[in-house]
Protein backbone atom coordinates (compact mmCIF):
# COMPACT_ATOMS: atom_id res chain seq x y z
CA UNK A 1 0.00 0.00 0.00
CA UNK A 2 2.99 2.30 0.38
CA UNK A 3 4.44 1.43 -2.99
CA UNK A 4 2.10 2.74 -5.67
CA UNK A 5 4.00 1.38 -8.63
CA UNK A 6 3.39 -2.30 -7.84
CA UNK A 7 0.12 -3.92 -8.81
CA UNK A 8 -2.85 -2.38 -10.56
CA UNK A 9 -4.16 1.22 -10.62
CA UNK A 10 -5.40 3.24 -7.63
CA UNK A 11 -9.06 2.61 -8.55
CA UNK A 12 -8.59 -1.15 -8.40
CA UNK A 13 -6.67 -0.87 -5.15
CA UNK A 14 -9.40 1.20 -3.46
CA UNK A 15 -12.19 -1.11 -4.57
CA UNK A 16 -10.16 -4.12 -3.46
CA UNK A 17 -9.61 -2.59 -0.04
CA UNK A 18 -13.38 -2.22 0.32
CA UNK A 19 -14.47 -5.61 -1.01
CA UNK A 20 -11.87 -8.14 0.07
CA UNK A 21 -13.08 -8.31 3.66
CA UNK A 22 -16.64 -8.88 2.53
CA UNK A 23 -15.55 -11.73 0.25
CA UNK A 24 -13.57 -13.32 3.10
CA UNK A 25 -16.52 -13.07 5.50
CA UNK A 26 -18.87 -14.52 2.85
CA UNK A 27 -16.54 -17.50 2.42
CA UNK A 28 -16.46 -18.13 6.16
CA UNK A 29 -20.26 -17.85 6.26
CA UNK A 30 -20.60 -20.43 3.47
CA UNK A 31 -18.35 -22.78 5.47
CA UNK A 32 -20.08 -22.32 8.80
CA UNK A 33 -23.63 -22.78 7.53
CA UNK A 34 -22.68 -25.76 5.39
CA UNK A 35 -24.57 -28.24 7.54
CA UNK A 36 -27.77 -26.15 7.49
CA UNK A 37 -28.08 -24.81 3.96
CA UNK A 38 -26.38 -25.04 0.58
CA UNK A 39 -22.65 -24.52 0.66
CA UNK A 40 -20.02 -26.49 2.48
CA UNK A 41 -16.34 -26.84 3.00
CA UNK A 42 -15.15 -27.01 -0.60
CA UNK A 43 -17.05 -23.99 -1.92
CA UNK A 44 -16.26 -21.87 1.13
CA UNK A 45 -12.60 -22.77 1.00
CA UNK A 46 -12.40 -21.79 -2.66
CA UNK A 47 -14.04 -18.43 -1.85
CA UNK A 48 -11.45 -17.80 0.89
CA UNK A 49 -8.65 -18.64 -1.56
CA UNK A 50 -10.26 -16.33 -4.14
CA UNK A 51 -10.19 -13.41 -1.69
CA UNK A 52 -6.45 -13.94 -1.20
CA UNK A 53 -5.96 -14.16 -4.98
CA UNK A 54 -7.98 -10.94 -5.41
CA UNK A 55 -5.67 -9.20 -2.92
CA UNK A 56 -2.62 -10.50 -4.72
CA UNK A 57 -3.77 -9.46 -8.20
CA UNK A 58 -4.50 -5.92 -7.02
CA UNK A 59 -1.54 -5.21 -4.74
CA UNK A 60 1.22 -7.35 -6.21
CA UNK A 61 2.73 -10.49 -4.80
CA UNK A 62 4.84 -9.00 -2.01
CA UNK A 63 1.90 -7.71 0.07
CA UNK A 64 0.37 -11.18 0.32
CA UNK A 65 3.58 -13.20 0.49
CA UNK A 66 4.59 -11.24 3.59
CA UNK A 67 1.54 -12.60 5.43
CA UNK A 68 0.88 -15.95 3.76
CA UNK A 69 3.93 -17.58 2.22
CA UNK A 70 4.50 -21.02 0.79
CA UNK A 71 5.70 -22.64 4.00
CA UNK A 72 2.66 -21.47 5.95
CA UNK A 73 0.31 -22.65 3.20
CA UNK A 74 1.95 -26.05 3.05
CA UNK A 75 1.78 -26.35 6.85
CA UNK A 76 -1.96 -25.53 6.85
CA UNK A 77 -2.65 -27.96 4.00
CA UNK A 78 -0.79 -30.86 5.61
CA UNK A 79 -2.20 -30.18 9.08
CA UNK A 80 -5.79 -30.05 7.82
CA UNK A 81 -5.28 -33.23 5.78
CA UNK A 82 -4.02 -35.10 8.85
CA UNK A 83 -6.90 -33.81 11.00
CA UNK A 84 -9.42 -34.89 8.38
CA UNK A 85 -7.77 -38.31 8.20
CA UNK A 86 -8.21 -38.63 11.98
CA UNK A 87 -11.84 -37.49 11.80
CA UNK A 88 -12.85 -39.90 9.07
CA UNK A 89 -11.00 -42.91 10.43
CA UNK A 90 -12.36 -42.31 13.92
CA UNK A 91 -15.64 -43.83 12.69
CA UNK A 92 -14.00 -47.23 12.93
CA UNK A 93 -13.73 -46.81 16.68
CA UNK A 94 -17.26 -46.06 17.75
CA UNK A 95 -20.74 -45.02 16.80
CA UNK A 96 -21.76 -42.64 14.03
CA UNK A 97 -20.09 -39.36 14.88
CA UNK A 98 -21.83 -35.98 14.63
CA UNK A 99 -18.97 -34.26 12.85
CA UNK A 100 -20.36 -32.61 9.69
CA UNK A 101 -19.61 -29.04 10.78
CA UNK A 102 -16.11 -29.96 12.00
CA UNK A 103 -15.34 -31.76 8.72
CA UNK A 104 -16.58 -28.70 6.81
CA UNK A 105 -14.20 -26.40 8.69
CA UNK A 106 -11.21 -28.72 8.22
CA UNK A 107 -11.93 -29.22 4.51
CA UNK A 108 -12.26 -25.46 4.02
CA UNK A 109 -8.82 -24.83 5.58
CA UNK A 110 -7.34 -27.57 3.41
CA UNK A 111 -8.94 -26.36 0.17
CA UNK A 112 -8.27 -22.67 0.78
CA UNK A 113 -4.60 -23.09 1.62
CA UNK A 114 -4.03 -25.76 -1.05
CA UNK A 115 -5.63 -23.86 -3.93
CA UNK A 116 -3.83 -20.66 -2.99
CA UNK A 117 -0.50 -22.52 -2.95
CA UNK A 118 -1.32 -23.99 -6.37
CA UNK A 119 -2.11 -20.48 -7.65
CA UNK A 120 1.18 -19.17 -6.21
CA UNK A 121 3.12 -22.00 -7.82
CA UNK A 122 1.48 -21.66 -11.22
CA UNK A 123 1.61 -17.86 -11.45
CA UNK A 124 4.51 -16.59 -9.33
CA UNK A 125 7.07 -19.36 -9.00
CA UNK A 126 6.94 -20.46 -12.65
CA UNK A 127 7.56 -16.87 -13.75
CA UNK A 128 10.53 -16.57 -11.37
CA UNK A 129 12.08 -19.86 -12.41
CA UNK A 130 11.64 -19.10 -16.13
CA UNK A 131 13.32 -15.72 -15.68
CA UNK A 132 16.05 -17.39 -13.67
CA UNK A 133 16.57 -19.91 -16.45
CA UNK A 134 16.93 -17.22 -19.09
CA UNK A 135 19.75 -15.47 -17.25
Amino acid at each position, binding site marked *: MKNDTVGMSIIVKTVTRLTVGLILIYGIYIVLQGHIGPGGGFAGGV*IVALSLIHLMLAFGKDEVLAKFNKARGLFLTSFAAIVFLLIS*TSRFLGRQSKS*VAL*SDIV*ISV*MVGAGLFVI*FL*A*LVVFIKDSLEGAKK
Partner: protein
Amino acid sequence: MELHLILIFMICASIMAVEIKDLISSVIALSAVGLGLCLAFLILKAPNLAITQLVVEILLVVILIQATIKRDLPLIKDGRWLFNTVSTLVFIAVFLTFGYFSLKELPSFGQPTMRVSQDYLANSLAQTGSVNIVSLITLNFRGFDALAEVAVLFTAVIAVLAITRKTGKVYEK
Protein backbone atom coordinates in the same frame (compact mmCIF):
# COMPACT_ATOMS: atom_id res chain seq x y z
CA MET B 1 -37.10 -27.39 -22.00
CA GLU B 2 -34.75 -24.84 -20.35
CA LEU B 3 -32.33 -27.65 -19.71
CA HIS B 4 -32.16 -28.51 -23.41
CA LEU B 5 -31.59 -24.86 -24.34
CA ILE B 6 -28.75 -24.66 -21.83
CA LEU B 7 -27.23 -27.90 -23.13
CA ILE B 8 -27.31 -26.61 -26.73
CA PHE B 9 -25.70 -23.35 -25.55
CA MET B 10 -22.98 -25.34 -23.75
CA ILE B 11 -22.24 -27.45 -26.82
CA CYS B 12 -21.98 -24.33 -29.02
CA ALA B 13 -19.69 -22.60 -26.52
CA SER B 14 -17.41 -25.61 -26.19
CA ILE B 15 -17.10 -25.93 -29.98
CA MET B 16 -16.19 -22.22 -30.05
CA ALA B 17 -13.63 -22.75 -27.28
CA VAL B 18 -11.91 -25.44 -29.31
CA GLU B 19 -12.04 -23.73 -32.70
CA ILE B 20 -11.23 -20.08 -31.89
CA LYS B 21 -7.66 -18.97 -32.62
CA ASP B 22 -7.39 -16.23 -30.00
CA LEU B 23 -6.48 -17.72 -26.62
CA ILE B 24 -8.33 -15.22 -24.41
CA SER B 25 -11.55 -15.64 -26.42
CA SER B 26 -11.15 -19.38 -25.99
CA VAL B 27 -10.88 -18.99 -22.20
CA ILE B 28 -14.00 -16.78 -22.17
CA ALA B 29 -15.93 -19.40 -24.18
CA LEU B 30 -14.77 -22.09 -21.71
CA SER B 31 -16.07 -20.02 -18.80
CA ALA B 32 -19.40 -19.72 -20.63
CA VAL B 33 -19.56 -23.54 -20.64
CA GLY B 34 -19.01 -23.53 -16.87
CA LEU B 35 -21.71 -20.90 -16.34
CA GLY B 36 -24.15 -23.02 -18.39
CA LEU B 37 -23.29 -26.05 -16.25
CA CYS B 38 -23.98 -23.99 -13.11
CA LEU B 39 -27.41 -22.97 -14.46
CA ALA B 40 -28.14 -26.59 -15.37
CA PHE B 41 -27.37 -27.65 -11.78
CA LEU B 42 -29.73 -24.92 -10.53
CA ILE B 43 -32.54 -26.16 -12.80
CA LEU B 44 -31.97 -29.74 -11.59
CA LYS B 45 -32.37 -28.40 -8.00
CA ALA B 46 -28.80 -28.96 -6.76
CA PRO B 47 -27.72 -25.65 -5.18
CA ASN B 48 -24.70 -27.23 -3.44
CA LEU B 49 -23.20 -28.27 -6.77
CA ALA B 50 -24.16 -24.97 -8.39
CA ILE B 51 -22.26 -22.92 -5.79
CA THR B 52 -19.20 -25.17 -6.04
CA GLN B 53 -19.24 -25.16 -9.85
CA LEU B 54 -19.52 -21.36 -10.07
CA VAL B 55 -16.72 -20.74 -7.58
CA VAL B 56 -14.34 -23.30 -9.09
CA GLU B 57 -15.07 -21.88 -12.55
CA ILE B 58 -14.04 -18.36 -11.39
CA LEU B 59 -10.79 -19.73 -9.92
CA LEU B 60 -10.14 -21.70 -13.12
CA VAL B 61 -10.60 -18.63 -15.34
CA VAL B 62 -8.28 -16.53 -13.16
CA ILE B 63 -5.57 -19.21 -13.19
CA LEU B 64 -5.93 -19.81 -16.94
CA ILE B 65 -5.69 -16.11 -17.80
CA GLN B 66 -2.82 -15.42 -15.40
CA ALA B 67 -0.79 -18.54 -16.04
CA THR B 68 -1.23 -19.50 -19.68
CA ILE B 69 -2.17 -16.50 -21.81
CA LYS B 70 1.25 -14.89 -22.00
CA ARG B 71 3.15 -18.10 -22.76
CA ASP B 72 4.10 -19.42 -26.18
CA LEU B 73 2.26 -22.67 -26.77
CA PRO B 74 3.71 -25.07 -29.33
CA LEU B 75 1.08 -25.80 -31.95
CA ILE B 76 1.59 -28.90 -34.09
CA LYS B 77 -0.64 -28.91 -37.12
CA ASP B 78 0.76 -31.26 -39.74
CA GLY B 79 1.44 -34.98 -39.83
CA ARG B 80 -0.41 -38.13 -38.77
CA TRP B 81 -3.87 -36.74 -39.41
CA LEU B 82 -5.07 -40.12 -40.70
CA PHE B 83 -4.02 -41.96 -37.53
CA ASN B 84 -5.47 -39.23 -35.32
CA THR B 85 -8.82 -39.22 -37.11
CA VAL B 86 -9.15 -43.01 -37.13
CA SER B 87 -8.25 -43.35 -33.43
CA THR B 88 -10.67 -40.56 -32.49
CA LEU B 89 -13.50 -42.23 -34.40
CA VAL B 90 -12.72 -45.62 -32.82
CA PHE B 91 -12.77 -44.15 -29.30
CA ILE B 92 -16.04 -42.29 -30.00
CA ALA B 93 -17.62 -45.52 -31.28
CA VAL B 94 -16.48 -47.53 -28.23
CA PHE B 95 -17.73 -44.82 -25.86
CA LEU B 96 -21.12 -44.58 -27.58
CA THR B 97 -21.58 -48.37 -27.57
CA PHE B 98 -20.83 -48.81 -23.89
CA GLY B 99 -22.81 -45.67 -23.05
CA TYR B 100 -25.87 -47.03 -24.90
CA PHE B 101 -25.80 -50.34 -23.03
CA SER B 102 -25.20 -48.74 -19.64
CA LEU B 103 -27.82 -46.02 -20.12
CA LYS B 104 -30.42 -48.69 -20.95
CA GLU B 105 -29.87 -50.22 -17.51
CA LEU B 106 -30.41 -46.97 -15.58
CA PRO B 107 -33.81 -46.08 -14.11
CA SER B 108 -35.60 -43.37 -16.07
CA PHE B 109 -34.99 -39.73 -15.21
CA GLY B 110 -36.80 -38.45 -12.13
CA GLN B 111 -37.68 -41.92 -10.78
CA PRO B 112 -34.66 -43.13 -8.85
CA THR B 113 -34.54 -46.41 -7.03
CA MET B 114 -35.33 -45.35 -3.47
CA ARG B 115 -34.02 -48.27 -1.43
CA VAL B 116 -30.98 -46.62 0.15
CA SER B 117 -32.16 -43.04 0.00
CA GLN B 118 -35.38 -43.82 1.91
CA ASP B 119 -33.21 -44.92 4.81
CA TYR B 120 -31.10 -41.75 4.56
CA LEU B 121 -34.20 -39.53 4.47
CA ALA B 122 -35.77 -41.27 7.45
CA ASN B 123 -32.83 -41.57 9.84
CA SER B 124 -30.22 -38.98 8.89
CA LEU B 125 -31.37 -36.11 11.12
CA ALA B 126 -31.68 -38.27 14.22
CA GLN B 127 -28.35 -39.99 13.67
CA THR B 128 -26.13 -37.05 12.77
CA GLY B 129 -27.91 -33.82 13.68
CA SER B 130 -27.42 -32.07 10.34
CA VAL B 131 -30.21 -30.58 8.23
CA ASN B 132 -28.46 -30.40 4.86
CA ILE B 133 -28.74 -33.99 3.65
CA VAL B 134 -26.34 -33.56 0.72
CA SER B 135 -23.34 -32.42 2.75
CA LEU B 136 -24.31 -34.92 5.42
CA ILE B 137 -24.12 -37.84 3.00
CA THR B 138 -20.85 -36.69 1.43
CA LEU B 139 -19.17 -36.02 4.77
CA ASN B 140 -20.67 -38.61 7.09
CA PHE B 141 -22.22 -41.66 5.44
CA ARG B 142 -19.78 -41.55 2.52
CA GLY B 143 -16.92 -40.08 4.51
CA PHE B 144 -14.26 -42.08 2.74
CA ASP B 145 -15.15 -40.44 -0.56
CA ALA B 146 -14.36 -37.08 1.00
CA LEU B 147 -11.14 -38.54 2.40
CA ALA B 148 -10.08 -39.65 -1.08
CA GLU B 149 -10.97 -36.20 -2.43
CA VAL B 150 -8.75 -34.56 0.20
CA ALA B 151 -5.96 -36.99 -0.66
CA VAL B 152 -6.24 -36.07 -4.36
CA LEU B 153 -6.05 -32.35 -3.58
CA PHE B 154 -3.06 -32.84 -1.28
CA THR B 155 -1.27 -34.87 -3.96
CA ALA B 156 -2.00 -32.12 -6.49
CA VAL B 157 -0.50 -29.44 -4.23
CA ILE B 158 2.65 -31.50 -3.61
CA ALA B 159 3.02 -32.35 -7.31
CA VAL B 160 2.61 -28.75 -8.51
CA LEU B 161 5.14 -27.53 -5.96
CA ALA B 162 7.56 -30.28 -6.96
CA ILE B 163 7.32 -29.39 -10.64
CA THR B 164 7.68 -25.62 -10.23
CA ARG B 165 10.43 -25.55 -7.63
CA LYS B 166 13.42 -23.29 -8.20
CA THR B 167 16.28 -25.57 -7.17
CA GLY B 168 16.99 -28.37 -9.58
CA LYS B 169 16.07 -26.29 -12.62
CA VAL B 170 19.66 -25.46 -13.58
CA TYR B 171 20.16 -25.51 -17.32
CA GLU B 172 23.68 -26.28 -18.48
CA LYS B 173 24.94 -25.25 -21.88
